[in-house]
């Protein structure tokens, strides 16, 4: 049923009948996983890279400071491991998966603004070694996350 609707959406847009294109919606990348506290994860074997999503950086405002954890520190799913500061507000960043921190993006200390301009690429925050690959199942895929953002934004 869903596939049929997808086909119909594409047909509608091809025939230039109005399709609900939410032009201002935030960017959501297809091959990443998402947590409901607005962090994204890229899984690469048993290594995971994460950062905050476009939706998150948009709601935060200009990031002026990123607090990075120490190397070797362990993080657990749903727990805070660092923070970003923007417009006089520090917001905790929660870890989408559990593991050990193996790399942090030192560039963010000099250029915290990368989190805003390139949240999925240069604005990555830390890389961890996964301790439990099963946890990834609990995260949302890109479609679910897009819908989640829409629901949140529709609240007011």
């Amino acid at each position, binding site marked *: 049923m869903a596939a049929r609707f997808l086909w119909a959406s594409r047909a509608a847009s091809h025939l230039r009948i109005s399709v609900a*294109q939410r032009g*201002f919606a935030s960017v959501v990348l297809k091959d990443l996983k998402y947590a409901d506290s607005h962090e994204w994860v890229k899984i690469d074997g048993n290594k995971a890279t994460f950062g905050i999503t476009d939706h998150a950086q948009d709601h935060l405002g200009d990031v002026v400071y990123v607090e990075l954890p120490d190397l070797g520190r362990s993080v657990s799913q749903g727990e805070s491991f660092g923070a970003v500061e*923007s417009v*006089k507000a*520090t917001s905790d960043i929660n870890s989408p998966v559990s593991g050990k921190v193996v790399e942090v993006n030192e560039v963010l200390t000099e250029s915290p603004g990368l989190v805003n301009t390139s949240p999925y690429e240069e604005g990555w925050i830390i890389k961890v070694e996964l301790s439990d690959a099963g946890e990834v199942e609990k995260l949302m895929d890109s479609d679910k996350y897009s819908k989640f953002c829409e629901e949140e934004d529709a609240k007011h």
Partner: protein
Amino acid sequence: MVGFKNRFMLMEVYLDPDKDLLGEGTPVILTKLNLSEAIKDSILVNFGECGLASCLGSFHVAYVNPVTKLCIVRSSRDEHRRVWSAMTLVRSVGNCPVVFNLLDISGCIRACRDAALKCETDKFNQSGKGLSEEEIREMNRKMRTPRTLEVWKLGTVNYLKSLKLQDKLVSERKANRIPDTLLSLQHPPTYTLGKRRTDHNLLIPEAELKSIGAELHYTQRGGDITFHGPHQAILYPILSLRSIGFGARSYVEALERSMIEFSSLYGVKARAGNKCETGVWVGDRKIGAIGVRISSGITCHGLAFNIDPDMKYFEHIVPCGIADKEVTSLRRETDAQLPSEEVIHEQLVTCLAKVFSYDDVVVKEDPSAILNTLEDDD
């Protein structure tokens, strides 16, 4: 800026209008799922797959009350007439014949919600006696609970104690054991630093602070160095950002608006800061400061508004890390007669409650008792 236009339609659903079905009780329980399926089927039948696909993006049943039979349906503005027609043409939900009737249509969920509440209250008042106990309970549960702000008037509180209290309240709010809470207080002379620990902006050595009667504290809030002291009104909102639908930036902007609104009560034209100068300014002079921490979506710390503090204390710091900009106070900016500080605090609280659209403001009884138990916890 509104990039995407929606229409929210408030519909009433008449079940079994021709009394075709025999039997007592409600023939079908309306849920978001069965209503949504019925409407989508109707769009498919009447407008084809292409029609359905073009509506599907924004179509969403936002609210359903099975007791009062009201529902709110969202659609994009471009497609709403199609969705509306389809709803009018819905013949049945499940096995039960139905008729949809449009009551209201608006561009924002808020107006629709208010209309829905009014309808439901009228219905409830009319047939209150006719509803069973269970239905009344169900309706009270479904009817949106008004948003309440609980205010704690705390007088002068030591800074560390207020941090402990906030930590406790943040966990309580996160676990949903307390409603949105607002602490209204003052501090004894205290300098505080934010997460970035910008202590280079403290111009006197730490050792000298005691001699001028002040303390220094490092905190996890955003922002630079600031001073808190008597005759400065402080508000610490402990709110769930998710339930009010704000992000960090919109929250801070709302705090700024609260202080601007409050200043206008005294004829003081305040404005929000420019980029990187968050806070509330009168001309080039800062009258209100903001420093916030958000942890798992719950806010703590907040704002500080200068009523008539001892300005000499500000000379020992580069306030908020912004050099060569003055600090000012309400006393300095207006010749108006200032009422008692208690009244001023209440006015500031009211402005914040208004900006954040709270329906109810409740003052907590005897909050100082909680402060005393915190001391015992040590």
